[in-house]
């Protein structure tokens, strides 16, 4: 466990370990991207892991009393404090091991939250936890809205997406702000490891989680996780939609190791964002002109990313 897999850039989830720590039978919707991402994350972490889960879809679908989908120790406390709870657990273990109350062993301390629990209401707790330098892994699965409460917009909902609190209407294009750049915010804390991932690229995701576990200190992994229910797309398109996000350059797979950023997947020829947008009902109302506007922004951002990579 916790070794990176050699096979790269191939879509072979079969290469992943068979053991499940997030069991089937949870209450996720069909084709739930976050559930898939979480499965992969915990395959990479293995059994010596403790999870603090924020209130969210992932928490609700996995812990309906008296059942649980979790095979590793798991705690849910509240919506905005997964980072604080996880680092409290880490500190507790650190003290008890140092004082000889518990044997020394390597345990992965994980905080798991959605985009809302991470980038909006939980940003302060996350910042505090990263700044304090605990040895923990923060997993944000980004399904780009508050799905658990019925698809309300978050600070990470993309421009133009229609949600229940940023609805498209006669005088509204849906979400009117650009997506908050959480990986950059994490990186600004100068932690040893920051990465982005997507369950459409399971080996890349697996390897990044394994790396995060091996590195001492805080690690932040931001996973774009398509949600067919909230994105209004057929559930069999989860993987495809994730790939389109990456292939269009809208969501880039990279890692930042001790401040050094590199793409883990370089798209040879970016496909138009239109493919991605057209696949989802949340963007249905966008006009050709709107799509052009978004394409321009994606092009600009991608250019900036390439320049940034050349500089290092």
């Amino acid at each position, binding site marked *: 466990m916790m070794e990176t897999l050699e096979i790269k850039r191939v879509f072979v989830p079969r290469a992943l370990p068979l053991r499940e720590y997030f069991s089937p039978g949870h209450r996720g919707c069909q084709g739930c991207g976050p559930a898939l991402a979480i499965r992969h994350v915990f395959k990479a972490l293995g*059994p010596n892991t403790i999870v603090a889960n924020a209130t969210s879809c992932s928490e609700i679908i996995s812990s309906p*009393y008296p059942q649980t989908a979790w095979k590793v120790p798991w705690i849910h*406390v509240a919506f905005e404090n997964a980072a*604080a709870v996880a680092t*409290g657990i880490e*500190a*507790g273990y650190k*003290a008890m091991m140092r004082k000889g109350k518990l044997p020394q062993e390597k345990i992965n301390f994980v905080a798991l939250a959605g985009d809302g629990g991470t980038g909006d209401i939980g940003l302060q*707790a996350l910042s505090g936890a990263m700044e*304090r330098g605990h040895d923990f892994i923060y997993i944000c699965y980004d399904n780009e809205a508050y799905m658990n409460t019925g698809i309300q917009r978050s600070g990470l909902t993309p421009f133009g997406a229609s949600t229940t609190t940023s609805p498209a209407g006669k005088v509204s294009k849906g979400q009117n702000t650009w997506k908050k750049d959480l990986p950059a915010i994490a990186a600004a804390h100068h932690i040893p490891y920051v990465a982005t991932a997507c369950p459409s690229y399971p080996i890349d995701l697996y390897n990044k989680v394994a790396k995060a576990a091996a590195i001492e200190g805080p690690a932040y992994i931001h996973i774009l996780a398509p949600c067919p229910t909230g994105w209004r797309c057929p559930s069999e398109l989860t993987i495809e939609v994730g790939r389109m996000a990456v292939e269009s350059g809208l969501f880039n797979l990279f890692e930042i190791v001790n401040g050094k950023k590199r793409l883990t997947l370089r798209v040879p020829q970016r496909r138009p964002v239109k493919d991605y947008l057209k696949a989802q009902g949340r963007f249905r109302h966008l006009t050709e002109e709107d799509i052009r506007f978004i394409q321009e922004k994606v092009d600009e951002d991608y250019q900036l990313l390439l320049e940034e990579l050349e500089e290092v």
Partner: protein
Amino acid sequence: MARRVGLEVSIACSEAVTLANVDVIAAYPITPQTHIVEHLSEQVAEGHLDAEYIKVESEHSALSCCVGASAAGARTFTATASQGLILMSEIMYIASGLRLPVVMALATRTLSSPLTIWGDQSDVMSQRDCGWITIFCENGQDVFDQSIIAFRIAEDRRVLFPTMICMDGFHLSHVIEPVELLSQEEVDSFLPPYKPEYRLDPHRPLTMGAFTMPDYFMEIKKQQDEALKSTLPVIKEIWNEWGNRFGRYYQPVSCYKAEGAETLILIAGGFSGTAQIAVDRMREQGKNVGLLRLKLWRPFPHQEIRDAVKGAKLVVVVDRALSVGGQGGPIAAELRSSLYHLKKRPAVVSFVAGLSGRDIHIDQFVEMVERAEGHLSAGKIPDYEMFGVRE
């Protein structure tokens, strides 16, 4: 051997927490709690206490870290006051629901607004229903003792509830008092290491904090309520053991010249010292007055308080908190509801006094008793009165 020293009460609290050998402290500064956490930081920095001191960015995270650490099986402490406590409020309820024996020291302080840093009990009263064992302290020795006892109570397997000890902000937290400190051996003999039955352990995975549907919630709440009520005899037993070992006995409600008294003053916290002097003065003048000190707020000692007021005609309750637009003083309201079903019960007169650090002097206690007696003989008892307010 016990050492008697002059100490600021906040420092006495930190010394006790050090002797309790906590594993994790997570706290955020706020007046008048700061001296407690500053001294604990020093204890850790100087190597007197081997603990992780988590320098959190807010009280919300302070208590969240404590919940995580306690769930991991660590002995855990935090301290706060006022705005800090209500920022923790969300997690207060959860710590209790998860049955985690976190210990908190609260230097009680007024809630904004208007902003004020001075003391009363509005912060602790705001958390009345959160399911924490809540203990009021009266003097420095009491704070030192309860800061150790709280761990023993909270961690007892018959208890397993977070426990809060309250000291009046400034009036108690910042005064220097003689305190008899205990040795490490003495504390260790009373307080065994925390050995949780359930904790977050990869070798024995479990799920904590699952969500429920309406078909389970009420059963779980009832269990929590019954469990908290059932801690009362255990708390008494532990206080009694402390008394037997160290000579200082504590009770949920303690009585002073209350036997056969017609009028009783009921108050919680450090101001009971002033009330006691007032009682002595009134006794000298031939008045049949006694004093009840409420030490245990949750679980509320219904039977003890009913027994204590049994023979009295009048109970004068002095609350340092106000339920705005409600029944006035929270302790008075609790007492009234506790007595309601008794056939023979004393009249209850509720005063709200001493808010935001305003003193209550000896003669003011006397005045409150006289006013209350006046209300009683006039046969007209107001719901409550704000005492000592300039008109």
